[in-house]
């Protein structure tokens, strides 16, 4: 006990970072054991100002065809529709006709309380781990601090930007 009492400040100094690491790991990974989002959703990838674009109207997926101006330098990048099965964490490309069959809730928050968010840009050098913005390569479902990384189709920044359309109403 005298040894412990004599070295107590040292033990406190070493314990504080360890406790925080355990806390962070627990906050990130433990929620997966207690609850998991299950609501599927539809999203698109593609980034352009013209061509075929998808949106939600009257709880259904709709599309519009916008003609590109003559001066447009290249053919528009094709938007692709994807259905993400949240429980299995897999995405599958679907056609517009398939997407039309679903009823969509375009609220940003799912019935379970989850929201779609981009990940944080993890960069920098100690101690300047600066977050310059969102990481568009990673998509998360978040709810009150709990977050799940989603295995969506590689959005690859602006060349294939992720656009959430809505939650599937069952």
């Amino acid at each position: 006990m005298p040894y412990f009492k004599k070295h107590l400040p040292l033990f406190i100094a070493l314990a504080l970072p360890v406790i925080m690491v355990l806390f962070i790991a627990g906050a990130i990974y433990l929620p997966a054991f207690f609850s998991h989002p299950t609501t599927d959703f539809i999203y698109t990838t593609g980034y352009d100002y013209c061509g075929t674009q998808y949106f939600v109207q009257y709880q259904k997926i709709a599309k519009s065809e916008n003609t590109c101006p003559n001066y447009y330098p290249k053919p528009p990048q094709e938007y692709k529709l994807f259905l993400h099965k949240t429980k299995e964490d897999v995405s599958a490309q679907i056609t517009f006709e398939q997407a039309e069959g679903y009823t969509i809730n375009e609220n940003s928050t799912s019935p379970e309380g989850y929201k779609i968010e981009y990940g944080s840009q993890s960069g920098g050098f100690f101690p300047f781990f600066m977050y310059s913005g969102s990481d568009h390569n990673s998509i998360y479902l978040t709810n009150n601090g709990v977050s799940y990384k989603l295995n969506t189709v590689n959005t690859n920044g602006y060349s294939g930007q992720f656009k959430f359309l809505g939650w599937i109403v069952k």
Partner: protein
Amino acid sequence: MDKNTLLESITAASKDNIITKDEILNAYDRGQGVKKDTALTRHLNIAEILYYIGGLIVFSGIVILVYQHWSELNTFSRISITLGSAIISYITAVIFTKYEKYEPLSHVFFLISALLSPIGMSIFIYEMKISISFIATQLAISSILLTLYLSSYYIFRKVLFIILNIIFGTWLFFSFTEWVLNGSPAVSMFHLTEYRFLLTGLSYISLGYFFSERDERSLSSPLYSFGVIALLGATFALGGYSPNQNSLWELLFPLVNFAVIYLSVYLKSKSFLTFGTIFLMAYIGKITTEYFANSLGWPLSLVIAGLAIIAIAFISINLNKKYLQKTV
């Protein structure tokens, strides 16, 4: 001279400020034959200052050499110049530790090795095309170097290794938490960066207190300084700014600040008093600007803030004179 007479002489000398606590302890240690590492705790002479300047110039030269001739150097050259130099410096320093009169040189070469090692290891990972993220690279480097310098301290018992262990340990803490977070948006949601600095500050203060009662007490002052800056800086940042302020931390900050100022008396630390005062002034300026600039008018709130800062400075100077003269 009997023991009681000797002790009374020491007491009288202490009252008259003829002798300091360190001198008494050093004399005791000499009598016991205890050999202490004083290279970083005593005042450096001109030769030792030149050693360290030379070491920094060597380090700078190697870094500039590799940077300027990066495309001309092949893989082996890049690794051998950086990591190879780090290893050779370490071995050289170990050899110098065997000779007492070359003790200061061993510190310089240990320092060169510590500065070059992270760069050398980064280049090694890059050149070997080991496919890991930047964060994982930092995690690997900090953990390897922490292990190395913990072992070095166990063998050589040098104060320099304590400093290096603190630096690499802190780096490991930050990079490990980054790696665990793995880009999760929870970072910004929960202000985890601020909380990491807060805990780092508390750890540093705790370490500073630990060393204050040991032979390495010269480490206390810088640890207290960095610790209190991190603690108060993080607490200040957690308070946020209107309209995104966090009321809980804005209310807690003055309590933390006053605790720091109170501890300056208990720990006899000027760092606590100085930075506690500065942060309190900053807090008053922030709160005045945030909440009173519009209601009382900008000029009037500036007058109130200025008077409050004068009062704090007056109290701080008096605390310093009364309790902290002749302390760290």
